[in-house]
C-alpha cells in the first residue's frame, strides 16, 4: 500500500477534474437543486414560477395516477428477486460447460446491445394481440393473451420482459465471470462430500458470488427506478390508462405532455428519495469491496 498524505499534487488534480465537475454541476447538481425549488411552485416549464408551498405535494398524495405509478414501480421491483434467482440458477447450470455457449452468449446479449428503444418497439409489434407470439399462443391454446391491453397483464409483461428477459444475457456473462473466480478445489471438495447440484448451489456457489449478486440486484433497481423510461415510452406509452405508468413515466407525462412542470417536480422528489437510497447502498457496496 502506498503511503498517502505525504504532501499533495498541487493544482493538477483540480485542473484534471475541472471539466467533469463543471458538467456535473450544470447538468446534474443544479437540476436536482432547482427541482426541489420547482416542486413548491406552479410552473409550465417556461414563463414565471409562482410559489405555492406544499400544494403540489398535497395534490400528488390525492392523485390516483401517482399511487398507481408508485405501485407499478414496486411491482416491477418484485421481478428483481425472480430475475436474479433465475439468472443465477441458469449460470450455475451452465458453469460446468455447455456446447455452443459462445454463440448462445452472443444471441442472448443482443437485447442489451440494441437498447430499450429498439427492444421496446420490437416488443410492441411482437406482443400485439395479433402479433407473432399470439399467433403461436392461439394455435396452442385457442385464445390470445392480451399482453399489452389487459391492465394487470401489461405491467407484468413489462416486469418480466425488462427485468427477467432482456437482462438474461448480461446477467449470465456477469455471473459466470464471478463463478469462474471460485477456486475449483472448493467444487471438488463438495463433490467428494457427495453434495448434489442443489446443495453445491446453495452452499458453495451462492455464498462465493455474494458480492456479484448484490451488484446485480442494485443494477436492476437502478434499471427499474431510473433507466426504463425509453422501454415504456416505446412499448405501452404508460397505457392502457395509467396501468403501466411508473414514477419516471409519470414525470414525463406531467412535465412534457401536460406542461405541469412544478407538479412533475413533486413526483421527481419522490423518485429522488428512492434513488438517493439506492445510490447510497451502491456506494457502500463499492467501498466495502475496495477495503
Amino acid at each position, binding site marked *: 500500500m502506498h503511503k498517502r498524505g505525504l504532501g499533495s499534487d498541487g493544482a493538477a488534480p483540480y485542473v484534471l477534474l475541472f471539466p467533469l465537475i463543471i458538467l456535473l454541476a450544470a447538468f446534474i447538481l443544479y437540476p436536482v437543486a432547482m427541482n426541489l425549488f420547482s416542486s413548491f411552485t406552479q410552473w409550465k416549464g417556461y414563463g414565471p414560477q409562482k410559489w405555492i408551498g406544499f400544494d403540489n405535494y398535497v395534490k400528488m398524495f390525492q392523485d390516483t395516477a401517482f399511487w398507481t405509478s408508485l405501485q407499478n414501480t414496486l411491482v416491477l421491483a418484485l421481478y428483481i428477486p425472480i430475475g436474479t434467482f433465475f439468472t443465477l440458477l*441458469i449460470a450455475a447450470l451452465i458453469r460446468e460447460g455447455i456446447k455452443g455457449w459462445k454463440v448462445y452468449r*452472443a444471441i*442472448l446479449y443482443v437485447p442489451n446491445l440494441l437498447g430499450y428503444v429498439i427492444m421496446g418497439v420490437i416488443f410492441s409489434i411482437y406482443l400485439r394481440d395479433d402479433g407473432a407470439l399470439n399467433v403461436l399462443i392461439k394455435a396452442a391454446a385457442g385464445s390470445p393473451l392480451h399482453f399489452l391491453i389487459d391492465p394487470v397483464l401489461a405491467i407484468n409483461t413489462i416486469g418480466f420482459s425488462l427485468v427477467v428477459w432482456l437482462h438474461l444475457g448480461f446477467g449470465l456473462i456477469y455471473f459466470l465471470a464471478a463463478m469462474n473466480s471460485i477456486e475449483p478445489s472448493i467444487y471438488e471438495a463438495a463433490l467428494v462430500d457427495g453434495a448434489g447440484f442443489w446443495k453445491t448451489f446453495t452452499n458453495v456457489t451462492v455464498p462465493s458470488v455474494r458480492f456479484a449478486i448484490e*451488484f446485480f440486484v442494485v443494477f436492476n433497481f437502478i434499471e427499474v427506478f431510473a433507466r426504463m423510461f425509453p422501454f415504456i415510452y416505446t412499448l405501452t406509452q404508460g397505457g392502457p390508462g395509467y396501468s403501466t405508468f411508473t414514477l419516471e*413515466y409519470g414525470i414525463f407525462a406531467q412535465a412534457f405532455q401536460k406542461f405541469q412542470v412544478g407538479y412533475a417536480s413533486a413526483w421527481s422528489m419522490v423518485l429522488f428519495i428512492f434513488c438517493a437510497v439506492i445510490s447510497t447502498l451502491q456506494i457502500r457496496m463499492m467501498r466495502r469491496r475496495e477495503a
Partner: protein
Amino acid sequence: MKKSSVFTLGTRVTVQVLMIVLVLASLLPLYNIVSASFKTADEFTSNPISLPQTVTWDNYHYAAISGKLLAYTLNSFLFVPAALLLYIAVCVSAGYAFGKLRFALRTPLFLLVLFLSIFPQLLLATQVFKMISSLHLTNTGLGVILSWVAYFAPFGTYIMTTFFAEMPYELIESARIDGAGPYRILLTIMAPLAQPMIATIAIIGFQAMWNELPFSLLILQEQAQRTLTVGIALMKGEFGLRVPILSAALVIAMIVPLAIFLFFQRYITLGVTAGAIKG
C-alpha cells in the same frame, strides 16, 4: 482442465435443451421483425409469422428515404463520436486524478461523483432543457453532446478510477524522479497503459449515447436534427400500424449496434464485468 461435475449425462442433455429453448425464444421476436420487413402490408396481415412469400425491398426504401432514417443515422454518426471523444477525455483525466493523485478533496468529490451517477434522466430533464435553452443550444449537436457527456461521465470515471488506482505507483515515482509532471505522466505513461480500459469505457459510452432517448428527444425537436434512436422512438406514432415499414426501420437501426458487437465483442464482455468484478 476438466472441471468436476455433479451432473449425469441426462441432466447435461436437459440443460443443453433448456439453453437452446431460451436462445430460440429470444431469437423469435428478432426473426419476426426481419421477416416482416420483407413483406408487403397485405402479406403481413394474412401471414404474420412465416417467411415472406415474395421478398420486397420497398419497406427499406420507404423507411430510409421517406422515413428519413438515413438522415437520422448520419446525425447519430456526427453527434455520438464527437461526444465520445469528449467523454473519454473527461473520464480519463478525472479517473487519473481520483485514482493516482493526492489532493484534499479527493474522497468527498469521488463520493459525490458516485452518488450522482444513477439519477434518472427524467428527474433532470426539465432543468437540463432549460439550461440548454439558455445556452441557445436547443436543436444543436453541441447541446445533446454536453448533456450526454455530463450524464454518462460519472460511470466511466468510476471505471477509470478503479483501473488507475490498481496501477503500481513505481511507474509514477520513477517518472517523477526523471522530472515528469502529472500531465506528462498521464499522457506518456498512464494513458497508453490504460488503452484496453479506455476501449472498454468507449464501448460502454458509445452504447449509452447511441441508445440515449430522453435528452435527445427534448433537445433535438427539429425533425432534421433527430438521432436514429429518437427517430425510431417517434416512428411508431408516425407510421401507425404499418408494421412492415416499422420493421424495416428497426432492422436498419440494428445494423450499427450489431456491427459494433461483432468487431468489439472482447471489450463488451470486459465492460459487463468492469463495473463490479475486480481483477
